[in-house]
């Protein structure tokens, strides 16, 4: 999917907007049944949350997959849960800024020289490695994938402070223009201030 086709599918999707709690919330329904929900800050226009929901092969509604923002905490931690990660483990999340994609991994109490972060162009992903073999993460950048943009090693940087590793990747200018246009479009959508409005796309 190139930049154009992604823009087209965005335009073709059915959208519902809602303004609530100082956030602009938009729900997209694509023609293939996928759903996307985005939340923007009203003041700064920063993207706070972007999540996806797919239908499973058998037709069941899957859970929301968070792409950007804090993963939704499960409402009640039941003891019947089969298996889940201990809360002392590193927490991986993406929090974008206006100019770059940014990932934060909390609970990583190791010195900075343990980490190595690099781009793997053949697999179109970024890899975080630790020399003490405690943490390893391979992740792609869905935005780049959707627009089929090549990776640039020099755009990647990382810092470590307060047990948190922050990895940043400068957004290419194609992405920047795309996001600006999208935001302009979204602002044109009439958002209801009321939370009880019917969501036409759902």
């Amino acid at each position: 999917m190139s930049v154009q086709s992604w823009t087209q599918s965005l335009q073709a999707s059915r959208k519902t907007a809602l303004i609530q709690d100082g956030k602009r919330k938009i729900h997209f329904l694509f023609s293939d049944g996928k759903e996307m929900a985005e939340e923007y800050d009203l003041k700064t226009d920063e993207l706070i949350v972007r999540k996806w929901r797919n239908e499973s092969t058998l037709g069941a509604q899957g859970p929301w997959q968070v792409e950007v923002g804090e993963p939704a905490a499960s409402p009640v931690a039941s003891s019947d849960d089969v298996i889940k990660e201990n809360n002392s483990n590193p927490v991986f999340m993406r929090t974008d800024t206006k100019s770059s994609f940014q990932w934060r991994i909390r609970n990583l109490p190791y010195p900075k020289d343990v980490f190595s972060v690099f781009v793997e162009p053949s697999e179109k992903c970024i890899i975080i490695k630790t020399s003490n073999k405690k943490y390893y993460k391979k992740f792609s950048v869905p935005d780049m994938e959707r627009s089929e943009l090549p990776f640039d090693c020099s755009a990647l940087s990382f810092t470590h402070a307060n047990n948190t590793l922050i990895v940043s990747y400068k957004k290419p200018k194609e992405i920047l223009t795309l996001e600006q246009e999208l935001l302009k479009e979204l602002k044109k959508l009439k958002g209801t201030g009321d939370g009880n409005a019917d969501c036409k796309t759902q």
Partner: protein
Amino acid sequence: MPRAALKPLWSGSHIQSMSLYSAHSQAPGLRPPPRSLAHSLRDAHRRSELVHVQQPVRDKQETVVKNQVEKKRAVNTQSQQTEKTARRFSPDTFPLRTNQKEAPHSHIFTSVAAEMAMTPKVPEVRDIMRIERIGAHSHIRGLGLDDALEPRQVSQGMVGQLASRRAAGVILEMIKDGHIAGRAVLIAGQPGTGKTAIAMGIAQSLGPDTPFTALAGSEIFSLEMSKTESLSQSFRKAIGVRIKEETEIIEGEVVEIQIDRPATGTGAKVGKLTLKTTEMETIYDLGNKMIDSLSKEKVQAGDVITIDKATGKISKLGRSFTRARDYDAMGAQTQFVQCPEGELQKRKEVVHTVSLHEIDVINSRTQGFLALFSGDTGEIKSEVREQINAKVCEWREEGKAEIIPGVLFIDEVHMLDMECFSFLNRALESDLSPVLIMATNRGITRIRGTNYQSPHGIPIDLLDRLLIIATSPYTEKETKQILKIRCEEEDVELSDEAHSVLTRIGMETSLRYAIQLITTAGLVCRKRKGTEVQVEDIKRVYSLFLDEARSSQYMKEYQDSFLFNETQTPTMDTS
């Protein structure tokens, strides 16, 4: 061994497996006195094995030690080590451990018994894994046919009934072929002639991948669901769809399993599992179900396992190569595998079989797929079913899915009524219909819901569509053989005379009654501390429990002294 005296073991075939556990769980409140080096050397291997194998099922605060690669070095510092690891891995449980020391070998010392009596008895936590219950047909493992479908006289738990087994074998081939939909088979015969056994045999030979749904004729009568809905759900449960789906799995080498059980023996267990790959390490919190299945699979440090994140299904891939030299006592079938690479959580495409009914439930939006777990599925609209059928056919044409027609077995089919029979007539004509096997022990009787008499209580038009397999009563030799198989299954040893007596009882009363006497006689025998059931034991239980004929006889003689003896109902009413 003092351990036998310490603990009232429950009797039976489980003694052997239990004693292993009791060696461990019997010594709270003690720490091992210093031992000689030779002593500990001898014990070291045994101990390390016990700790890792039995750990998850013990009934106290416990920690599976981060498994040391250099086991040998650890030999003479056993007790120190236990403390060290406790401190390292569960600082909060440490105070408890100081007054409840684990002493795996303290039964060696005779002073233990005295102190044991002082410590409060901790109730035994029995895990499901150790209770293997024996059912009426658990000795049946197949139909007992050879490759040419010729029945062997005694095989796979089946005895005699050669003609019916051969017929069932032909049906089985038809099912395995999977091309023919909507055939129906009726197994008819007197009570106790192996009708259900043949159906179970078919189910066993089909293997776990072919859906086999069994229900009794009276199960479909419910106030919450119409009879036909219940029948069509059963029909759809018997059709499987093999389809690829992406699931999230965790794959890694076990570094440590830690399970804390409340000292009272009841309440929630808390568990942690540390897994690693060559690149990373993660700690997981375990739910109760997970703890049970980990102990069931006997997962221990050093194993490479995969866990299906959604269902919690664990499969052991083997032992890590790094642990290859850990133990000298290892099963020949132990496989060594490389520690997985990269991330612990992966998305993998797995092929699995779901039934059409499950797909129906997932897609009936009113309930959502959660209904599958609560069991409350309600009625499913026929439009949903049609959509699913179309979708499944589409998948099949695209090569995404494969349809596996299975078997629906309806026992006691004479309990169905007229409406169900006419529904069956129609349902069997659908091309998405499984092979239907029915069983009945009735002769010419009234069709439920009508006043017509018909053979087997089934309308003639349905009978016309059936292939009928008849079973005949067992001969004396066969009865003897069946009783022998049951004795093996129920773990009761029978002397030759007792066996002949029991066979005669089986011939004169009923096979079921004779089978019932096996375990009861076994218990009587054990009470008199015998090892083999003798004729006296059989006589004793025969006098204790009446069979059907003697009971009726008794009734006739003493009818007048029973309650309500003056009301006489001519026949049993089944409608």
